[in-house]
């Protein structure tokens, strides 16, 4: 239960290239913030620096008003759940969960009480005497979570905790994590590269790209108003139309076409972006026209790759009326859905 403030963190491994540059982030008390980014963007590095498992090259980490930048890992009073769960293979579930409390030199009775309670909350009571190898992946995940939560950490760090689970369990477990996090009001950093997962459970999302935060906002904000092309691409915008000027205050030039938008134009806009399912198919002889070159079936829709005067576009269409490859496709770009991006 605490605030976390990262101030201009930078990290370089050995003599290599910098992995993190000037990374700053403020997490409010009791919030769950996700670090979202592609592989290699520095999510794990950031998390390990917060935990104290890595020493940053520069920058500071504060929990509430305490600067923990140089505090050794075993004194930081945080908790972490690892991708591999990292359960102690030689200890039972009970002893695994009790480990952190034992380190805090609590009395036996206190330890037993707290462990019993958290095992109850996480539904592990019946498994208390098992060894980790005797548990399923989902159960191991729960133990890792219980072990991290039982110490009542100031901060909970989760590094892709769900990536080893099958799709169904992932959904169940992420809800479980969110439920426990809200119940215990634990400030939490959740690392993932799965946007659906992080949107589902986060208060705020920080999108990481090559060691920099591209955008830090609530999931809804990120979903509807990505600020950079990178963020937009990462969360499913597939169409990026290069802008080479504005037309009055309501439209942009794209190639030799004019594309109208809602609201005033931004002089610095570089691209216009729109999701495939936001482009509307229109009756023949209306709107723009292109030729279908590829068609993929997505289950709920067809996705067409279309050669159009605006360039190659990804457009979703209904499954009831398929358009053949090679056939023309007519569409309009709804002015209120087009998003101009400045970077």
């Amino acid at each position, binding site marked *: 239960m605490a605030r976390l403030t990262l101030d201009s963190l930078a990290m370089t491994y050995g003599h290599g290239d910098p992995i993190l540059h000037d990374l700053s982030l403020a997490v409010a008390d009791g919030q769950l913030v996700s670090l979202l980014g592609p592989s290699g963007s520095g999510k794990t590095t950031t998390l390990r620096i917060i935990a104290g498992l890595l020493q940053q090259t520069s920058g500071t980490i504060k929990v509430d008003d305490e600067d923990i930048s140089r505090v050794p890992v*075993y004194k930081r009073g945080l908790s972490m759940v*690892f991708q591999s769960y990292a359960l102690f293979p030689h200890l039972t579930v009970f002893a695994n969960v009790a480990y952190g409390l034992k380190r805090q030199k609590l009395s036996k009775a206190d330890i037993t009480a707290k462990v019993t309670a958290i095992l109850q909350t996480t539904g592990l009571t019946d498994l208390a005497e098992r060894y980790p190898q005797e548990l399923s992946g989902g159960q191991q995940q729960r133990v890792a979570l219980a072990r991290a939560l039982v*110490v009542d950490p100031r901060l909970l760090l989760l590094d892709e905790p769900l990536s080893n689970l099958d799709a169904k369990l992932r959904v169940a477990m992420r809800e479980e994590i969110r439920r426990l996090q809200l119940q215990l009001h634990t400030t939490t950093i959740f690392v993932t590269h799965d946007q659906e997962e992080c949107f589902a459970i986060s208060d705020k999302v920080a999108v990481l790209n090559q060691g920099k935060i591209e955008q830090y906002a609530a999931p809804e904000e990120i979903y509807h108003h990505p600020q950079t092309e990178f963020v937009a691409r990462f969360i499913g915008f597939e169409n990026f139309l290069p802008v080479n000027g504005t037309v009055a205050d309501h439209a942009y030039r794209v190639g030799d076409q004019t594309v109208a938008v809602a609201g005033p134009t931004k002089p610095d806009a570089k691209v216009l972006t729109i999701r495939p399912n936001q482009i509307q198919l229109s009756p023949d002889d209306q709107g723009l026209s292109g030729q279908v070159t590829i068609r993929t079936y997505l289950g709920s829709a067809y996705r067409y790759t279309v050669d159009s005067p605006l360039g190659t576009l990804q457009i979703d269409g209904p499954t009831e009326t398929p358009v053949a490859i090679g056939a023309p496709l007519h569409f309009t770009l709804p002015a209120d859905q087009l998003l101009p991006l400045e970077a």
Partner: protein
Amino acid sequence: MQKANRFLLLIPAALGIIVFALFPLIQIAIPTVTSGANPIALYTQFLQSNYDLQVIFRTLTIATVTTVITVLLGLPTALWISRQSVSWRQFLSVIILFPILTNAVVRNFAWIIILGKNGVLNNMLQALHLISAPLTLLYTNTAIVIGSVYLFLPIMITTLVDSANGLNPEIEEAAAVLGARPFTILREIILPQMAPAILTGAILVFSGAMTAYTTPQLLGGNRHLVMSTLIYQQAMTLGNWTNASVVAMVLIVLSLIVLGLLRWYTGRLDRRVDHA
């Protein structure tokens, strides 16, 4: 393929071992029970002799101390090796392997040079004026222990490196995050995980050190006999073959008991490992 043919493939090896290992063993065991007043007379006589008991005690003590020292030195070394980069690890493993494959006489000979009256160590200590007269280092129990440690440490290290390479570093990090300091991690997290390998190494070292001949022969001399050198002395110097056989039988039984105990203990640890 016919049943008979299957056994045909097994027969040379089986027969070889029965005829050339088990039969000779029985052959030397028989006189030990037939030549005394009663079947156990020679054994009780052996176990009542102070001198012989001393040899047994020396044998077991040397093997135990050797095992403990190899674990104490081998464990940190193995951890250190397992935490190097792959190429370094390979280089270090080759360095460890080299002594294992080098003749034991050569390896013990090195310690004769070091521990002798005018040996490297005495010369060095005298040059540093730490001692005025040479110490008696060679032909002592300590010398045998040093030689045995030198002989078996690489085997212990190799065994432990294999196991340490399999440790998941995230498990140690998880303990650190929960408040464990490095030494606590070593004691509570690393050691228990490596316990089966430590026992495997201990079995190899103990049985090796207990039955080794060359080291006690070269570094212990005639005054510090262990069971294996006693067997040789009884048989070849004193020509007392039945006595030699008695010692041989006791040595086999003792080493089987110790191995059995260590294996039993390893088995108890297996619950955690088996399901992995």
